[in-house]
């Protein structure tokens, strides 16, 4: 093992670059858009628009708000690969939450299996945040994921999937 722990130095630099809270605001907005979008329309447009907008909005905010105050840095290709993995994972999770209920049997099936749907949704939400926490080295996302998971259980979660007002 090396005397200089470069991995630790890189991780600290990465974490301090994300102390601005923009990532948290981005995920909060994403959840809000997904929830509002799924209750307002039948085709998940809210979620799709949110997915398309959150990335560019986050990049713009980083450039305008964070860079002049905390400085800017370009991380290694490995970090960029991890970021790409997270974006793909979130897109896959949104696609899965939209398609799987229809494959399994539509609204009737969802209504009759409320507990299973509730559990599945909670696990899916936690998995997304756990993936973010793991790949992006942002451990606080484990806590955020746990809270969102319990919120998905407590509030009739099939409303999300059924896209009806509740």
């Amino acid at each position, binding site marked *: 093992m*090396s*005397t*200089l722990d*470069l991995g630790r*130095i*890189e991780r*600290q*630099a990465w974490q*301090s*670059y994300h102390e601005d809270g923009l990532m948290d605001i981005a995920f909060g907005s994403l959840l809000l858009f997904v929830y509002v979008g799924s209750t307002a329309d039948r085709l998940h447009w809210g979620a799709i628009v949110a997915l398309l907008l959150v990335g560019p909005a986050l990049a713009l905010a980083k450039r305008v708000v964070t*860079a*002049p105050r*905390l*400085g*800017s*840095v*370009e*991380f*290694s*290709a490995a970090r960029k690969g991890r970021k790409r993995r997270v974006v793909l994972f979130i897109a896959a999770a949104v696609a899965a939450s939209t398609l799987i209920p229809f494959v399994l049997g539509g609204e009737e099936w969802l209504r009759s299996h409320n507990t299973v749907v509730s559990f599945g949704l909670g696990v899916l939400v936690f998995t997304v945040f756990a993936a973010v926490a793991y790949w992006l080295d942002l451990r606080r996302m484990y806590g955020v994921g746990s809270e969102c998971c319990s919120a998905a259980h407590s509030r009739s979660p099939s409303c999300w999937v059924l896209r009806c007002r509740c």
Partner: protein
Amino acid sequence: MFPAESESRDLPDLSDIDRLIHEPARLLVMALLSVVESADFLFLLRQTGLTQGNLSSHLSKLEEAGYVEIAKTFQGKRPRTTLRISPAGRVAFEVYRSQLDRLLAELPRVTGNDNAK
């Protein structure tokens, strides 16, 4: 009693260590730049905790040695200094790391009992 000549020859040679990198502030700058593609002056200032003048002087020395590439640009009306480690700097840093690792590995461990003696 003086140590035998063969014993003194076994001691690790410190003269090979790159003194330019060995200075703590410059070592931190080199370590940071070696793990990122590029960073600007403000980011390094925050990460190292150095003053502007101090960091600037260390960067000048590293640039003179050809270890760091400095690009000064403007973003709108704001000047921006972007830094990246040069290929020569990366090689020098890797050599320094391996020398330091070898040097520290060769030193005997000092335990509490040894100090008491």
